[in-house]
């Protein structure tokens, strides 16, 4: 049941990303990628390789929709791998976590750090890979910062709504 809920969430978030946010053109500076929301919330009960494969599927689909072969693929795999390295450092007993990762299950402080770190990592990977050069590094950094801030805001807001309910 938990899994079906998660898959439905994934599809909805993905559609919002592709159909709504993909059509926003905010002066070329703002590219929030909120679809990572469902990757971040994924329970850690699966083996790491299976999580990375989920990253491949989600990133690959995103690549097809945005005509960026490999970019989201690479970033999502990185996200899923680093996620499992970070969680034991943030949470006291990670083995006992069974449900989705939310501010309720791992505590608001740890969740805050978790979201900020991984969103910055993912956005840096995506935007730097699609820029594919360091010649406009200042601009790229600005885009990464602005986009990450908006994504982090949306993800935390979503978490707030969900835990309040």
């Amino acid at each position, binding site marked *: 049941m938990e899994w079906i809920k998660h898959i439905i969430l994934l599809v909805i978030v993905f559609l919002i990303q*592709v*159909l709504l946010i*993909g*059509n926003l*053109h905010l002066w*070329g500076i703002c*590219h929030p990628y909120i679809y990572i929301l469902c990757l971040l919330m994924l329970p850690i009960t699966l083996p*790491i*390789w299976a999580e*990375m494969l989920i*990253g*491949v599927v989600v*990133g690959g689909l995103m*690549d*097809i*929709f*945005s*005509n*960026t*072969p*490999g*970019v989201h*693929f*690479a970033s999502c*795999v*990185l996200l899923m*791998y680093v996620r*499992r390295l970070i969680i034991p450092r943030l949470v006291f007993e990670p083995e006992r976590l069974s449900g989705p990762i939310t501010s309720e299950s791992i505590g608001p402080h740890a969740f805050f750090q978790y979201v900020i770190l991984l969103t910055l990592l993912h956005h840096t990977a995506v935007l730097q*890979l*699609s*820029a*594919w050069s360091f010649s*406009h590094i200042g*601009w790229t950094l600005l885009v990464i910062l602005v986009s990450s801030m908006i994504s982090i805001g949306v993800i935390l807001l979503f978490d707030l709504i969900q835990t309040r309910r």
Partner: protein
Amino acid sequence: MRSLLQFIARYSNFLVFLLLEVVAFMLIMFGNDYPRSATFSSANHICAWHYRNVTNTMEYFRLRRINTELSLENAELRTQLSKLENRQQDSLAQIVCTAQQERFAYMPARVIHLTTNEQHNYITLDKGDLDSVRVGMGVRNQDGVVGIVCAVSDHFALVIPVIHTKMQVSCRIQRNNYMGTIRWDGYNSHYVSLEEIASHIHPEKGDTIVTSGLSNAFPAEIPIGIVDKTELREGDVYHTIRVKLIPSFQQLDYVQIIKNRLSDEQKQLEHGMD
């Protein structure tokens, strides 16, 4: 052997991670240059179907602007028509080569999806292989050059627009016919740079840049942009020229795919010479 197996078992997750990243990097390195396969792009059936539905819904909010644009274009065409009629009456005796006159045919198409804020932007159109769209055809709208078709599926086509970092368009300055190349630096979707204009030429702000007619994709004299800023530093061989694009890519709706009827003949002749 046993220690090798132990090593693999111990670092299996990391090895899977490395393997997947290598695959991803191969895709990034080789996938961007050749988006020929329409399956893995937004021209594929499911993606394009989605985007078309969104466009259909959004269209209602844009009807007023589309109407204005159409009526303006109508007026423009009417003026051209009357000019042509006059000319025909003047020179009835003149013999015209019909093959050259009908060399380019235009097919209307609609933009169903586009990006303008990536480095590699693409446009998806609602016409495809079954409407005889082929890879390499040019695309324009009423304002000017849009791009070149790079992949086709049965019902949809993927276009590389002028604002794609790997796109180049051969062009000339309309005022004095000097040739150059238009290229985009991946920065601002309103401006492109005009390159290969030598230092002895004097481009001015406000000069119109049009297609040269040298490529197979576009007929000559289609507008591309207007010179916005020119700069010639001490010791430079070429001018640094910024050109403001005439078509507004963020508001692209209806475009025309340009079919060059003599393209094959020209290619055959040119390849025969080698």
